[in-house]
């Protein structure tokens, strides 16, 4: 019954997403949209003394996107903004197959998403929450995986 990509931890976070909801008066926020799948998330973050003190997300999307967002929130909570941004880059490199397997990284259990690198059409689903976090830190109100602003351009059909 095991699926290569849909491992237990991903299914669990999809079913019971952690840090679900919206913070009432966040210091940072952003909306992420993946028009191809209809993945759509709202991310709210409080940064205090350079650290992520609180983070929440809600939205709709596929299991990969939802689990990725949920695991992202548990991972970056308590981390400095710089540490979180480093994780954004490492996650993106892992999902696009550019991560150096030999080099040390800080991904830990997030490595369950490595399987998307063999599924180009699903890479964006996994990465969307991370780009949304980066957008929140950079005070960008919205990010879409389509168009010129797409951080990970992939060929698509309309």
């Amino acid at each position, binding site marked *: 019954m095991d699926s290569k990509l849909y491992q237990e931890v991903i299914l669990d976070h999809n079913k019971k997403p952690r840090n679900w909801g919206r913070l009432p008066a966040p210091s940072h926020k952003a909306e992420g949209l993946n028009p191809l799948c209809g993945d759509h998330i709202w991310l709210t973050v409080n940064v205090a003394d350079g650290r992520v003190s609180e983070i929440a997300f809600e939205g709709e999307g596929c*299991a990969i996107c939802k689990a990725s967002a949920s695991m992202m929130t548990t991972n970056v909570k308590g981390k400095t903004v710089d540490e979180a941004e480093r994780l954004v880059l490492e996650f993106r490199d892992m999902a696009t197959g550019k991560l150096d397997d030999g080099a040390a990284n800080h991904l830990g259990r997030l490595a369950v998403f490595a399987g998307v690198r063999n599924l180009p059409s699903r890479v964006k689903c996994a990465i969307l929450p991370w780009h949304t976090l980066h957008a929140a830190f950079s005070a960008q109100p919205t990010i879409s995986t389509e168009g010129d602003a797409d951080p990970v351009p992939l060929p698509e059909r309309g």
Partner: protein
Amino acid sequence: MSAVLTQLDKAQVLDVLRIRNDFPILGLQINGKPLAYFDSAASSQMPRQVLDRVVHYQTAEHANIHRGVHHLSEVATAAYEGARSRVGRFINAQEDREVIFTRGTTNSINLVAHGFGRAFVGAGDEIILSHLEHHSNIVPWQMLCEERGATLKVVPIDDAGDLLMGEYEKLFSPHTRLVAVTHVSNALGTINPVKEMIASARARGVPVLIDGAQAVPHMKVDVRDLDCDFYAFSGHKMCGPTGIGILYGKARWLEKMRPFEGGGDMILSVSFEKTAYNTIPHKFEAGTPPIAAAIGLGAAVEYLESVGMERIAAHEHALLEYATAQISAMKGVRIIGTARHKAGVLSFTVEGVHPHDVGTILNEEGVAVRTGHHCAQPVMQRYRIPATTRASFYLYNTYEEVDQLVRALRRVQQIFA
């Protein structure tokens, strides 16, 4: 559709196993499982007969067509024009010159939006479409409307995915210039009553374009019996190559229309003062066409005719009924599109599972389906869903493959239980 044929099908009206031997790609293993290819509505596979014809052309007949006096150019021209005749007979066009080679259905529709639209659609005019259209039969008309100050009128559908014909009749006005409607919905499988729709438009003097991309590969289409003004379809959905398609148009319209592109082959004479355009169909075929693809399309038509369009339609209908019965019996699976007359397209959603997750897990089981909005976002909006999973059937699909699909769907439900 003959009920008798449908009954007989399980007793092999089509020798599917022999047909499958014609398609080398169907022998592939995907993720260690036999490929079950249910994505022919997006693009069908190609039989050896078509592959061989294209290879023979490239190895023994190729040169540029028209105006060449050497042997190969004459052979290539005869093969290219022979393919046009074969396609014309296949859809029962009155004359070969009514059959224009294009890059595909999208290109065919854009040709009409340009050549007909700019000549006959002006400010305040109206074009009737249906809610079932693929983006390729919406966007070209929207672009035309923006440019000319015209308006789109949309025939609504009911919950089953059938057009509301009473509403269609009400959309006509003295300003209606064209009806552009799909023969078969790519997202839901609905077979529209196009003959009746054409007759209604004809009674009001309004010309009709039919998007036949999902019809010509799967059923006998007779453009003269339909009495449509334009009919568009693609080669790669009917066992032919990509990059080739057809626009059928009545000669009296084609002669009045502006060329789409300018260039070589579409002219009679050129000077810096004036160009005289070539006769139809050449007026619409500027530049060197995809000659090998056109010849491949001719071979695809020959292949489909050798099997028989009625047998193909009966086989697909039987598969659709078999799959519909199995999938509608699954708890938590909802079939989207339950029209009275359907082609071999089965769209569905799985409760609690996003279609892209469904598609990825089916792929792990060797099952190729399409997931997404199917370039028909208005249809998705109508059902308030972002996307569906779509299985589409063709002459080479088997009941065993449907069983493989159903098993894979059960696995989706188990994983997400």
